[in-house]
C-alpha cells in the first residue's frame, strides 16, 4: 500500500520537510493492539540510545479490550512536556481514537499510519477538518500473521515501520526488545526481532512517498527510564522508609507494587491493608513505634484517610501520604490526571489541622520530593502529603541520573537524659517540636492520643491548654518554609510576564518559557514544590517584579488560585487558565495566552521562532475552547 497525501478540497499543496530534533508520536488502539507496549518499547529504545523521552499512557476504564493510547515524545535535547500536537499518529482503531476526543490533537502536516484493511477510507478519517496529513496505510495484521507468524506482533511490525520512516534508534529497539522479553523466553525475543525487521523491510521496500517529518539526533550514553511512581518507591527507600501499608488504587498502585518487591530486601515491611483507613492507621502505628512509614493512594483513598490525618496532626506522628491524583470527585476518572485534590490536601480534615503539602513536578522530582517529605515529616513530627498526579505517576521519562545523597536523611528528635527526667511528650517549645520517644525506649513511656492533651499527653478539655497546643503545632509552619525553600524558577530575571503553576503542569510552563525566551519574549515561570505552608514571602517578591501573571492548573473550580487568594495578596490583574483534568494542557493555548498578555507586542518573527511549524495558530485570536480559559480576575 502506498502513502496517500490528502489535498484539502482538491488543492494539492507543497510542503516543506520539517527538520527537527524532537518528534511526538501517538499510538491508539484497543487493549489487544499493543499500543501501550509499543510505546514502552520505544521509550526504552530511546533511553538506551541516550535520548530524552516522555511516554504518557491513557486508558479507558477497561481492563482488556478497551481504548488505550500511548503518546511518546523523543528528543536529543531535554523534553519538558508530553508534547502538544502529534507529528505521527498510528491508529489501529478509529473508534478508539474518537474516545480520546480532546486528548490527541494532530499537527497540520502530520503523518498518519493505519491498517490497510480498515473500512474507513483516507478521506473519511474522523480527524479535525482542515488538516493536511500524509496518510499511509500499512498491512500490519497481514505482515504479522503471514510474515512473522503471529498476529500479536503487529505492534512490533509497526515499530519497524516507524523506525524506518522516521529514523528511530534501531539499535535501541533491538535492545529494548531483548530487555522486555528476556525474562520470558528466547523464542519471544526472536519472534519480536523478526517482526521489527519485517516492519522495517516492508517500509523500505513498499513505502515510497516522502513525508514532511525529518527527525534527527545524535545518540549518547544510556539514560535512566522510570515512572514517577517508581521514583517515589525508590526515593522512599532512600529516605529510610521501612514500613508501607496501602490498598491498591489506580493510578498509585505501582508504588506499593514496587515496594512489595524491594522493601523486604532491606528488612522493611509492606502490608496490603483491608482498606485505606486501615492502611493509614497501620502507618501511624508503625511511625509511633519508631519506624519511618508511608502510604500511597489516590483521591478516594485520601478521602477515607481524613480522620487518620487529623489523628497524626494532633498526636504529632510523622508519616508520608502520597496522593497520585486522578480525576474526581468520587470514582471520577480513575485513569486520568487532575489537580483537584489540592484543597483537600490542605483543608480536608475536620478541625484546624496543620499538615504539609509538597508536589513533585516531574519524574526526577518525585525522587527528591518524597525524600523531602520524609525529612520534613520526621524533623517536624507532622504528616506530609505528597501530591503527585497520574501524568507524573504513570508517565515514563528518561533522564541522565538521580542523586541519592543530596537530601539529608532526617532522624527523629529523641529526648535527652534530662528530657527524660520529667518527660513531656508535647512540651511547649519555640519550634513547636518536642522530643519524641517510641516503644522500646525506657523512661519515655507516654500516651499518644487524638484527644486534646496536656504536655504529658494526658487528655484535657481545658480550652486554655488546647489553645496552647494548637499554637504549638502551627508554630512549625514558619520553620518549615525557612528550612525547605522548595520551588523552581524558569526563564530570565526581569521578565514581567509570569507563569505560575504546580505539579505536572510544570512541563508546559517550562516549555513555554523556553520557547518564548528563545524568541526574545520575556516570560518567567515559577513552580512551587512546597504548597503548604505556602512560600508567601518568596511569591510576594516575585509578584512585585511582574506586570502580569498567568496561573495555570488542571482543576475546573480553580483550586490553586482559590488557595493562593486565601493566603496572600495577588497581583491586581491576573489571567487564570483552568480546566478539569483528563487531558494535557495544550502548549498552544498557553503560548497564545502569553502572546495576548505580554507587555510588548510579539512580532511575526518572534512567533515564527516560538512556533516554527506554525501549528499553534499564534496569529489568530485564540480559539474559544469549551473550558474556561483566560479568565481575567481583578483582585
Amino acid at each position, binding site marked *: 500500500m502506498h502513502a496517500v497525501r490528502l489535498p484539502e478540497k482538491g488543492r494539492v499543496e507543497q510542503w516543506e520537510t520539517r527538520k527537527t530534533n524532537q518528534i511526538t508520536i501517538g499510538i491508539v488502539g484497543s487493549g489487544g493492539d499493543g499500543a501501550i507496549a509499543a510505546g514502552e518499547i520505544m521509550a526504552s529504545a530511546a533511553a538506551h540510545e541516550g535520548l530524552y523521552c516522555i511516554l504518557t499512557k491513557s486508558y479507558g476504564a477497561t481492563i482488556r479490550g478497551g481504548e488505550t493510547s500511548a503518546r511518546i515524545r523523543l528528543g536529543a535535547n531535554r523534553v519538558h512536556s508530553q508534547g502538544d500536537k502529534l507529528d505521527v499518529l498510528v491508529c489501529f482503531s478509529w473508534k478508539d481514537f474518537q474516545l480520546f476526543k480532546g486528548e490527541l490533537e494532530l499537527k497540520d502536516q502530520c503523518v498518519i499510519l493505519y491498517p490497510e484493511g480498515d473500512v474507513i477510507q483516507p478521506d473519511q478519517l474522523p480527524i479535525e477538518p482542515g488538516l493536511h496529513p500524509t496518510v499511509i496505510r500499512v498491512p500490519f495484521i497481514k505482515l504479522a500473521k503471514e510474515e512473522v507468524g503471529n498476529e500479536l506482533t503487529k505492534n512490533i511490525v509497526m515499530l519497524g515501520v516507524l523506525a524506518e520512516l522516521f529514523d528511530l534508534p534501531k539499535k535501541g529497539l533491538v535492545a529494548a526488545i531483548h530487555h522486555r522479553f528476556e525474562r520470558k523466553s528466547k523464542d519471544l525475543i526472536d519472534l519480536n526481532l523478526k517482526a521489527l525487521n519485517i516492519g522495517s523491510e516492508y517500509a523500505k521496500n513498499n513505502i515510497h512517498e516522502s513525508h514532511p517529518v525529518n527527525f534527527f539526533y545524535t545518540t549518547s550514553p544510556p539514560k535512566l527510564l522510570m515512572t514517577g511512581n517508581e521514583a517515589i518507591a525508590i526515593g522512599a527507600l532512600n529516605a529510610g522508609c521501612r514500613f508501607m501499608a496501602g490498598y491498591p488504587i489506580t493510578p498509585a498502585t505501582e508504588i506499593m507494587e514496587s515496594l512489595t518487591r524491594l522493601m523486604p530486601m532491606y528488612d522493611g515491611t509492606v502490608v496490603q491493608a483491608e482498606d485505606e483507613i486501615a492502611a493509614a492507621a497501620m502507618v501511624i502505628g508503625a511511625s509511633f513505634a519508631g519506624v519511618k512509614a508511608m502510604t500511597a493512594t489516590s483521591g478516594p483513598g485520601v478521602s477515607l484517610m481524613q480522620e487518620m490525618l487529623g489523628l497524626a496532626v494532633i498526636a504529632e506522628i510523622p508519616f508520608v501520604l502520597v496522593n497520585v491524583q486522578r480525576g474526581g470527585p468520587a470514582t471520577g476518572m480513575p485513569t486520568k490526571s487532575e489537580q483537584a485534590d489540592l484543597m483537600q490536601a490542605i483543608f480536608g480534615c475536620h478541625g484546624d489541622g496543620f499538615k504539609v503539602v509538597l508536589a513533585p513536578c516531574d519524574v526526577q522530582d518525585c525522587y527528591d520530593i518524597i525524600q523531602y517529605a520524609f525529612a520534613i515529616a520526621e524533623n517536624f513530627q507532622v504528616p506530609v502529603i505528597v501530591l503527585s498526579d497520574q501524568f507524573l505517576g504513570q508517565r515514563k521519562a528518561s533522564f541522565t541520573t538521580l542523586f541519592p545523597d543530596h537530601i539529608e536523611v532526617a532522624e527523629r528528635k529523641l529526648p535527652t537524659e534530662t528530657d527524660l527526667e520529667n518527660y513531656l511528650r508535647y512540651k511547649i517549645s519555640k519550634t513547636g517540636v518536642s522530643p519524641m520517644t517510641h516503644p522500646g525506649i525506657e523512661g519515655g513511656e507516654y500516651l499518644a492520643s487524638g484527644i486534646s492533651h496536656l504536655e504529658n499527653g494526658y487528655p484535657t478539655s481545658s480550652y486554655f*491548654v488546647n489553645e496552647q497546643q494548637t499554637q504549638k503545632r502551627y508554630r512549625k509552619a514558619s520553620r518549615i518554609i525557612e528550612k525547605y525553600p522548595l520551588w523552581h524558577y524558569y526563564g530570565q530575571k526581569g521578565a514581567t510576564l509570569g507563569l505560575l503553576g504546580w505539579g505536572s503542569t510544570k512541563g508546559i510552563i517550562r516549555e513555554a518559557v523556553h520557547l518564548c525566551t528563545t524568541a526574545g519574549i520575556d516570560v518567567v515561570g515559577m513552580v512551587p514544590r512546597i504548597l503548604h505552608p505556602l512560600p508567601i514571602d518568596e511569591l510576594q517578591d516575585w509578584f512585585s517584579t511582574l506586570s502580569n501573571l498567568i496561573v495555570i492548573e488542571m482543576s475546573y473550580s480553580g483550586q490553586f488560585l482559590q488557595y493562593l487568594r486565601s493566603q496572600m495578596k495577588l497581583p491586581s490583574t491576573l489571567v487564570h487558565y483552568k480546566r478539569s483534568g483528563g487531558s494535557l494542557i495544550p502548549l498552544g493555548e498557553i503560548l497564545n495566552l502569553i502572546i495576548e498578555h505580554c507587555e510588548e507586542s510579539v512580532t511575526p518573527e518572534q512567533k515564527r521562532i516560538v512556533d516554527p511549524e506554525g501549528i499553534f495558530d499564534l496569529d489568530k485570536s485564540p480559539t474559544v475552547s469549551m473550558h474556561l480559559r483566560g479568565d481575567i480576575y481583578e483582585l
Partner: protein
Amino acid sequence: MSSNEDQIMEKEETGNTKKPGYSAKDYKSPLKPIWCPGCGDFAVLNALQQSFAKLRLPRHKVAVISGIGCSSRIPGYLSTYGFNSLHGRAIPLAIGVKLANPDNTVVVAGGDGDLFSIGAGHMPHVARKNINLTVLAMDNRIYGLTKGQMSPTTPLDTYTSTTAYGSYDPPVNMVKYVLAYGAGFVARAFSGNLPLLTSLIMQGIEYKGFAFIQVLSPCVTYRGKAEYDSIRENSEVLPDTYDPTDHKSACEIGDIEDKQYLGLIYRNDNLIPYEDRIIEMRKHAQKGKVIPVGELINLYRT
C-alpha cells in the same frame, strides 16, 4: 502555670518513677480513672496491671492501643506506652505498632462498638493474618461514652436512647465471629471474675499469634447495676474437662447464646504468626544479591 497542673493526678505510690519494678502498681499511671464507680472496666485495668507484673514485662516494651470509648480510656491509666487512637481503629494501628517492632508486647483494648461496629471491618483481617496481638473486647452491651445508645451487642428489645421502642437489631456474637475468622486463641472473661480474667490475659499475651478475649464488663450507668447479677446468672466457667484445642467443641460453645461460657474457648498452637511469615518472605527476597539502597536507581538504567 504548667499545663499539667490542671489534670487530676493520683500521687504515685512509689516516689521513683525511673526504675519501675514488676508489681501491679508499677503499671499505674498518675491519672485517676474517671469511670463511673462500679464500672466493669476497673477490673480489666486491674487484671492488665497484674498480668504485666506477673509476666514481668518491662513497661517500655509494652504498648496498649485503644480506640475511643469508656473502655478505650484504659491506656491512659497505664504507665506503659499507650495510644488512645480513633473510634474503631485500634486494631490496624496496633498492627503497625507490632510489625514495626515485633519485640514489643502489643495489647488492644476497645469497646463492643469500637471493635464490632465501626471497627468491624478490621477484625476478620487481623485474625486471618494472625498478627501477634492480644485483643480485649470490653463488652458492656451499650455505647457508654456517648451516653447510652444501642451497641452491636445490645440484646433485642432493649430500650436505649436510640431505641425508643425497643431495639430490634439481633446482637453480634463476638466469639462466633472470631472463630469463623480463624483466630487461634479465643476466650471469654468477666469483670466479675478477676482471677480468670487475669489468667486469660496472661495466656493471651503469651500466645504467639492473634489472641481474642471478650470481656463482659458491665456499664452500671446505662445498663444498671443488675448487669453483674444477670451476667453471673447467665454465665458459667468452662469445666476443667473442656478441651480448648478441639475446634468443634469451640464452635459449639460459640453457638450457644443463652449461656455465656467463660474461659479459654479455643486455642490452636499450630498457626504461623504473621511476623514469622514476613521473616520467611524477606529471606526469599534477599536470596539474590541485595544492592545498596542508594544504587537502586541503576535498576532503571536501560
